[in-house]
């Protein structure tokens, strides 16, 4: 009788061992597949369109004459050369303020719940003109597509909640 109970116990231990082994294999597999797709940006046409649209946006900074209002694209060049607006404001300050407002209106987390934050950088000739970071960064983010021909060097990342 005692021998039979011991044998039954041995079999149960074997069964538990098999289950534990299979669980470990599954865990390793799941961890590996989750890590594989963690830090890749989703190329988004929406980000491309946003970049194109903000480049054409007319700011309230006029340079040269009272009514020669500059677009974001032009203001970035003015900022690089240190120009001032007709009303005396620094072109770089206006550029940053307008970009913050544009980003806030375009990627508002109240309207679009999944958005956790964003990061925008404008570079020309290895010089950073504007660097804006707002909210939190996540592993799941949207970025411009590789087809976006952008001579100004705008990089935008829109962070969304993790899947």
């Amino acid at each position, binding site marked *: 009788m005692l021998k039979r109970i011991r044998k039954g116990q041995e079999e149960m231990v074997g069964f538990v061992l098999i289950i534990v082994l299979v669980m470990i294999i599954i865990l390793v597999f799941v961890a590996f597949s989750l890590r594989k797709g963690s830090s890749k940006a989703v190329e988004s*046409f929406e980000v491309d*369109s946003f970049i*194109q*649209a*903000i480049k*054409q946006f*007319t700011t309230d900074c006029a340079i040269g004459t009272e009514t020669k209002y500059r677009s974001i694209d032009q203001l970035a060049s003015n900022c690089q050369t240190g120009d001032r607006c007709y009303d005396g404001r620094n072109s770089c300050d206006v550029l940053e303020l307008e970009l913050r407002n*544009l980003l806030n*209106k*375009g990627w508002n987390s109240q309207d679009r719940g999944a958005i956790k934050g964003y990061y925008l950088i404008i570079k020309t000739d290895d010089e950073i003109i504007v660097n804006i970071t707002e909210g939190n960064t996540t592993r799941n983010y949207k970025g411009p597509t590789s087809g976006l021909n952008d001579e100004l060097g705008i990089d935008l990342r829109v962070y969304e909640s993790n899947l």
Partner: protein
Amino acid sequence: MDKKETRTYTLVLVSKISLRYKRSQMKIQQMAFMLMALTLFFVLIGLIFMAVQLSGVRESATNLEKENAEKLIMKIANSPEFSCGESFGTAKIDCVDFDKIIVFRDMVSDYSKFWGVADIEIVKLYPEASQTTCSYRNYPDCKTTRIYSENVKKKPPISNFVSLCRKDVVNEEVLEICELARINIRYEDKR
């Protein structure tokens, strides 16, 4: 060995063989149950794995549908009826001519079913405008321009960013002003 002893011996032998046979049966049953349990376990794992994989495929399909809709939006925005063309200097992409579309609204009945969507509207995002629908009276200080709308059940909107450009006169000087807007399209919900 007399007859009685032989009979007793035979009985003991038969009962021993029967017991061993029962034990073997028991073992075979145990193994069968074990195999069944293991098979069920692996089938369950397989099902879970398939479910995860299929949800990924469904998500990719949704994303693809969204991307296609976004491309369609850009196709609409860059069509001659909407686009800025070369009115604002060089040809611009993702640019909608506000002056053009405010007039175009009146002729949109000719374009019924042309785009294959049930609703097209343009919403100004920045600078902020009063919460009104655009008309000749309040143009350009208005928020939403409804271009086309069918009286059907519609799906939730799909949208993309555009630059909304117009010409304005300030101090007798013609200025080109571009603002940030969203173009929203909605498909008919046929379900």
